[in-house]
């Protein structure tokens, strides 16, 4: 499709990925309709505290994007397709320069250059940061540019609106959405030549996670129920350090350890534990601080990747060493100098605000919590030197014209994400999408204005009928209580440690909840800011994704990254080096699971070992010479 008419694109989601997409599309002369459940400036990206991994080698450590890609692939336990990881790491330095020019207030060295610190899973200082709220600052920089595009008429915002249904034309191409206005439940059709989803993670399925309450996973669930492939659902990152609370788990950033924070419990020499090097040793000295991560992983110490940190915290607590007998350990910054405390100020303040204790004086009590969704929408990635590179579209789902990007896609992080990589993957993915969508639209033979109106009206009618029915529900079940039950089962059996009998029971429980959902009654039947109705509508797609997580976890009989199954304690590349693909079939009561091979063209799988420090100079194979960065 060419000609003078502006290409119209819907972007659902206004976090880093959605805003990066919208910004790039606006520059590419598309008209963007940006849909978000909240003011985009409040999106969950603001919660990312620690930093932004960019291998630009300003610290004289001989760092490079190749080493960054190596760390990311290894950190993800070889489950990520490698070409997108490589290109993301190569684009990093350019993205940093762009964000800096856009005014993002990165911390500076005395000479005035962008400063870097060290994050988990690497030996390099490659994490740029803005105090303790890096995600907030990156999001604001993008939000400001998108607002600027809004004043130019290139972006139109639909905030406080929620996506409900993808509209597809006779050939199955995405051509619009049905959404509702969260203030008054009015249903609207939006039309476009392509639709992009950047709807983030799904922490709300576990109810108490480090995620914002916007992160329900419902949008991806709705798309999955409309035929979208969902990949690697079972890979959910558990962050080792959060403050437990009645409403959520509040993140204490990895930065705290990066700046020298130490994790410990009181030792007990009468207890013994198997160390990662294969030896069995006592659990420290009785009554003295036992810095278990430092002893177990001498090279990486407190900076092991998150999945390892969470499992070791769990193991130490299960051995009875948890503080106050609970599932919690100390994270200690009391020994750090005041300038380090200042760099961590906003994070330490959060702890103080929610617990009343000052972490500068008393070690923090922290515990693991659901944090990041590695799995998500399956999206395509033709690599730069693939023969069909220009016939396929990067970040496009299996539904033509429907793209997916950011935490809601499955790329980049494999079985475990490294700290500091999410912000990069969201912005990079967004810029790529901003380049690929116009190319896709140019390949179309007609514009959305030529799609018959009946297609839109049919979709609207379906939603009108569902709305009318659900608003009248008066059954005995309360959807918020069902949510508590769902979250309880998922947290106990589909998070840091999994075993098959429990997962089987969880799947049965989820099916039971699905049946009980049919008997839900709403405590509010009106259309005026009816949040109960909105949540009751989000719940079914959340349940379906919960099933995807549980079934994917049940079938995967190995230990890889965040997926830890003690019964199968080794990574099994022979049988399980493959991507899980879930498809929805309304005729079945469980997801249809198939597998796809992982693209490992750049690096053969090696053991993921963090017990030794080797600043090796890794080399990657088959690096294309024609990579075009999206900026």
């Amino acid at each position: 499709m060419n000609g003078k008419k502006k290409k119209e694109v819907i972007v659902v989601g206004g976090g880093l990925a959605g805003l990066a997409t919208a910004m790039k599309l606006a520059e590419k002369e598309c008209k963007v309709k940006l849909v978000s459940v909240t003011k985009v400036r409040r999106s969950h990206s603001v919660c990312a505290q620690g930093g932004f991994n960019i291998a630009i080698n300003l610290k004289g450590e001989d760092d490079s994007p190749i080493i960054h890609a190596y760390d990311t692939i290894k950190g993800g336990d070889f489950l990520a397709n490698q070409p997108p990881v490589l290109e993301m790491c190569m684009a990093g330095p350019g993205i940093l320069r762009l964000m800096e020019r856009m005014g993002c207030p990165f911390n500076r060295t005395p000479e005035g250059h962008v400063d870097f610190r060290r994050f988990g899973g690497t030996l390099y200082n490659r994490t740029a940061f803005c105090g303790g709220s890096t995600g907030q600052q990156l999001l604001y920089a993008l939000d400001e540019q998108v607002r600027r595009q809004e004043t130019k008429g290139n972006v139109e915002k639909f905030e406080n609106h929620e996506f409900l249904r993808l509209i597809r034309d006779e050939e199955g191409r995405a051509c619009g959405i049905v959404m509702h206005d969260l203030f008054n439940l009015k249903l609207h059709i939006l039309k476009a030549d392509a639709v992009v989803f950047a709807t983030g993670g799904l922490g709300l399925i576990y109810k108490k996670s480090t995620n914002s309450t916007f992160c329900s996973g419902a949008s991806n669930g709705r798309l999955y129920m409309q035929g979208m492939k969902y990949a690697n659902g079972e890979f959910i990152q558990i962050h080792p350090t959060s403050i437990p609370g009645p409403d959520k788990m509040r993140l204490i950033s990895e930065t705290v350890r990066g700046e020298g924070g130490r994790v410990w419990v009181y030792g007990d020499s009468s207890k013994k534990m198997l160390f990662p090097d294969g030896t069995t040793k006592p659990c420290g000295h009785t009554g003295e601080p036992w810095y278990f991560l430092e002893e177990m992983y001498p090279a990486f110490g407190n900076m092991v990747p998150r999945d390892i940190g969470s499992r070791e915290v769990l193991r130490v607590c299960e051995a009875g060493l948890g503080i106050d007998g609970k599932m919690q350990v100390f994270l200690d910054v009391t020994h750090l100098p005041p300038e380090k405390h200042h760099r961590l100020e906003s994070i330490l303040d959060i702890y103080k605000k929610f617990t009343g204790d000052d972490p500068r004086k008393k070690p923090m009590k922290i515990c693991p919590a659901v944090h990041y969704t590695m799995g998500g929408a399956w999206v395509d990635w033709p690599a730069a030197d693939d023969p069909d590179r220009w016939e396929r579209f990067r970040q496009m789902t299996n539904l033509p014209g429907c793209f997916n990007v950011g935490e809601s896609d499955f790329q980049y992080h494999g079985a475990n994400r490294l700290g500091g990589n999410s912000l990069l993957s969201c912005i990079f993915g967004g810029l790529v999408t901003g380049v690929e969508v116009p190319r896709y639209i140019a390949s179309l033979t007609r514009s959305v204005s030529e799609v018959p109106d009946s297609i839109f009206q049919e979709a609207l009618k379906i939603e009108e009928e569902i709305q009318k029915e659900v608003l009248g529900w008066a059954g005995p079940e309360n959807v918020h209580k069902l949510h508590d039950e769902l979250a309880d089962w998922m947290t106990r059996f589909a998070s840091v440690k999994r075993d098959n009998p429990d997962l089987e029971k969880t799947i049965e429980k989820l099916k039971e909840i699905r049946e009980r959902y049919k008997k839900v009654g709403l405590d509010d039947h009106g259309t005026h800011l009816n949040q109960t109705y909105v949540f009751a509508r989000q719940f079914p797609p959340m349940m379906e994704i919960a099933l995807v997580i549980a079934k994917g976890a049940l079938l995967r009989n190995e230990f890889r990254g965040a997926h830890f199954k003690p019964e199968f304690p080794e990574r099994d590349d022979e049988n399980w080096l493959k991507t899980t693909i879930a498809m929805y079939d309304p005729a079945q009561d469980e997801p249809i699971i198939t597998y796809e091979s992982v693209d490992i063209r750049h690096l053969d799988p090696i053991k993921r070992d963090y017990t030794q420090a080797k600043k090796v100079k890794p080399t990657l194979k088959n690096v294309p010479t024609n990579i075009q960065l999206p900026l």
Partner: protein
Amino acid sequence: MSDTHDTYTLKIFRGTPGNQYWEEFELQRHEGANIISSLMEIQKNPINKKGEKTTPVAWEQGCLEEVCGSCSMLVNGKPRQACTALIELYLKETGSFTIVLAPFTKFPLIRDLCVDRTSMFEALKKVRAWIPVDGYVDSGEFGPPVSPEVQDALYTLSTCMTCGCCSESCPQVHSDSPYMGPAAMSQIRLFDSNPTGKLQKSQRLRAALSEEGIAGCGNAQNCVRVCPKNIPLTESLALIGREASKQAIKDFLSLPDAGKQ
């Protein structure tokens, strides 16, 4: 305070425009509870203190870590983020077992504790709160070096989460006043202080000189006292006041305005 009380009351100003009323809810005390977790309890079991079935209370929420700006409301009459409002602390500090919640009054009411703060985001357009970069490409270069001290100051200004507490507390922000409020004025300072943002300084200052601008500030200094992010708002307001006056003189004398100091 006696510990024999195992419950407390949330007294909430609820309803829709023109139809607001008070409703009370009695809740069990829990360690670590905050206003949001209490509202979540009501959502699960919407029964008021009289034992009547009612509708769940509507409110805005997001990160629950005081960084997104969603959950602004009046707690015991003071504008703040509800997520950091710890129940036990309130009971201890006030000696009362009732906590009063109400929606902001300076923005259009939607329902219960939700208001529409769109005007704050519109103000960001008026003051051109962005850096005018040439394009979303990699120029291969960073901007000019920035000292750690300047970065620290810019970062502090840039943590504004558009929560609206400053406007809510400001006597000069009300339905008959065009004043954009302290947050937008402080954003002018942020972008005027950036080495590239400076190039559009005059345009931003002219927005500050408009009837919606800095003349609206009556120096009550409430804003700085309620800002959850401790942004030095009064400092920003004073500075923008001075800079705007200089701009007015420059404009009067028709001096060129290519962003020069």
